[in-house]
């Protein structure tokens, strides 16, 4: 592959501004794929997607590199490079399914165990006395450099030097705990299907938008107004039964409300808004759910779990989760101006069906490419992608509350309408790109 020369990242990322080429330059995109997506822990899938031996789920770990998550016969979940050790064909082509016995390449029939090791080559004697050594790893379906899961969420990385998953997540790990603790049985599982949608803009826009609390009241004003004004015409009893009335209007919350949610940032680019409160904090609590929670945890612990209420949590660069809604979005770049998102929902084990139903409703109302919220977000990213081609100004600014962030030993805290999220992301972006997190293999 083409080797991209090192750049002076100090010249592209300043404390309060970014160079526009970060969004438009295909060479920078390629370098991001090798240095950020090739080093960070990337979310692959959830263990519940592959419950039985031979169950698999395929994805790319960046814009191109195909991988397969598969349940082995010893019940462990593997993540393998989805590439035949022979000619290089992608071995598993379907998105998900089950294989019996062994993985088999469709080209020359090489087969592999679920741990990726080579099982059999047809007509093998032709390799005798050729110097070919079937035990060399390059002839297997090789596992990713590191694979790890936390409470069922499976991550993998192309880097053998990035710190372990728990260290890498740092303080942001509490959000995974909160998501799973919201289940009376302390576990979640994938349910309710997946929505896939495509954005014609740079992948970083969606990450920047997650904790950008200066946009909802502007971008989503129309749907909030349309929903509020129409629901107000319904008889009060009918209006009260509309779960949409809890989900849509908070997107129009005031600057003051959003400021009070706060933003918390961590190393490696992770951050969340909310904690004490968020736009999901005033959802009604299903009495059956509450009863199941209290039976499992007791009243005090249950209240503690509810009280930690975040809006969007980012595990930079591939995953954003909503603990209080049990919905996650998985990001995959395609090219400098295109990426895909998958929105997955989770069932809280031990909770009544109404909880999954709310999650599914949320995903449909807010994330769907055919909804009234997502398309307005996409529209402003799309316009930004276009506008940044203008040479009139090379810079994108993020000064809000600069110098006011509270720097603690393991985290940075700031106002909910600050640009702390941008500062957090681009500190990590620069560290990855400069390879200062590690001096490992350059995957490109």
């Amino acid at each position, binding site marked *: 592959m083409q080797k991209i020369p090192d750049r002076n990242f100090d010249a592209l990322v300043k404390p309060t501004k970014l160079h526009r080429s970060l969004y438009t330059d295909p060479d920078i995109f390629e370098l991001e794929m090798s240095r950020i997506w090739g080093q960070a822990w990337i979310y692959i899938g959830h263990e519940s997607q592959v419950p039985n031996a031979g169950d698999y789920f395929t994805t790319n770990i960046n814009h191109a590199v195909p991988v397969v998550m598969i349940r082995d016969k010893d019940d462990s979940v593997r993540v393998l490079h989805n590439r035949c050790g022979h000619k290089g064909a992608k071995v598993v082509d379907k998105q998900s399914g089950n294989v019996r016995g062994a993985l088999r390449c469709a080209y020359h029939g090489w087969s592999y165990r679920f741990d990726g090791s080579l099982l059999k080559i047809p007509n093998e004697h032709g390799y005798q006395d050729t110097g070919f050594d079937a035990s060399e790893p390059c002839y297997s379906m090789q596992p990713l450099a590191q694979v790890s899961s936390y409470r069922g969420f499976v991550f993998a990385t192309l880097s053998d030097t990035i710190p372990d998953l728990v260290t890498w997540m740092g303080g942001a790990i509490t959000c995974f705990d909160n998501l799973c603790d919201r289940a009376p049985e302390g576990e979640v599982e994938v349910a309710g*299907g997946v929505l896939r949608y495509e954005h014609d803009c740079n992948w970083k826009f969606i990450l920047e938008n997650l904790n950008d609390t200066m946009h909802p009241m502007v971008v989503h004003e129309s749907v909030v107004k349309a929903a509020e004004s129409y629901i107000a015409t319904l008889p009060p009893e009918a209006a009260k039964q*509309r779960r949409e009335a809890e989900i849509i209007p908070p997107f129009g919350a005031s600057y003051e409300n959003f400021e009070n949610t706060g933003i918390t940032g961590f190393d490696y680019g992770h951050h969340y808004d909310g904690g004490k409160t968020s736009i999901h904090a005033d959802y009604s609590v299903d009495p059956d759910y509450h009863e199941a929670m209290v039976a499992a945890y007791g009243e005090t612990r249950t209240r503690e779990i509810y009280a930690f209420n975040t809006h969007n949590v980012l595990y930079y660069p591939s995953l954003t989760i909503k603990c209080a809604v049990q919905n996650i979005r998985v990001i995959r770049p395609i090219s400098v101006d295109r990426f895909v998102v998958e929105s997955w929902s989770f069932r809280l084990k031990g909770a009544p*069906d109404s909880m999954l139903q709310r999650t*599914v409703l949320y995903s*449909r109302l807010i994330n769907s490419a*055919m909804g009234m919220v997502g*398309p307005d977000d996409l529209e402003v990213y799309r316009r930004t992608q276009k506008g940044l081609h203008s040479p009139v100004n090379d810079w994108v600014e993020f000064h809000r509350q600069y110098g006011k962030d509270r720097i603690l030993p393991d985290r940075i805290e700031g106002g909910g309408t600050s640009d702390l999220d941008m500062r957090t992301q681009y500190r990590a972006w620069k560290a990855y790109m400069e390879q200062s997190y590690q001096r490992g293999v350059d995957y490109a």
Partner: protein
Amino acid sequence: MPELAAIESFLYREASYLDRPDLDSWIELYTEDAYYWIPATENQVDPINHVSHIYDDRVMMEIRRRNFVHPRAASKDSQTRCSHLIGNVQIKGPSSEGGLIVESTQHVVVWYQNEQRVYAFTAQHELRPENGSFKIKSKRVNLINPDAAQRSLIIYL
């Protein structure tokens, strides 16, 4: 059983409102207890426990209709026009509530953001006879690619 020609003509009328698009006239073709559904997977049976691209009852249709013309909805700034081509119209039988189930194949070209996008699907209409014509009790749009990554769609198909 109503004549096939009457049903076809009703489907064309619905399509003509969407082509312009004129959601104010379009919504009047639907009953007060109507549903409009675009499932997110093939043979999806459940719109409540499984996510969909769209699953609107009349209330959500009313909200969408208002949002569609709201001056602050950036995604609606781009002019949108559609062209529906309807074929293979078949009466599948009576519905449980005295109406009838009609299936048709539809190809829709949507003009949005200076680009033509193609949607292909089987439409399932549940129609109720009313005043010599019909009202739509439910419409289900079975896209040929429901689980593909979708791009923004701001209009009903």
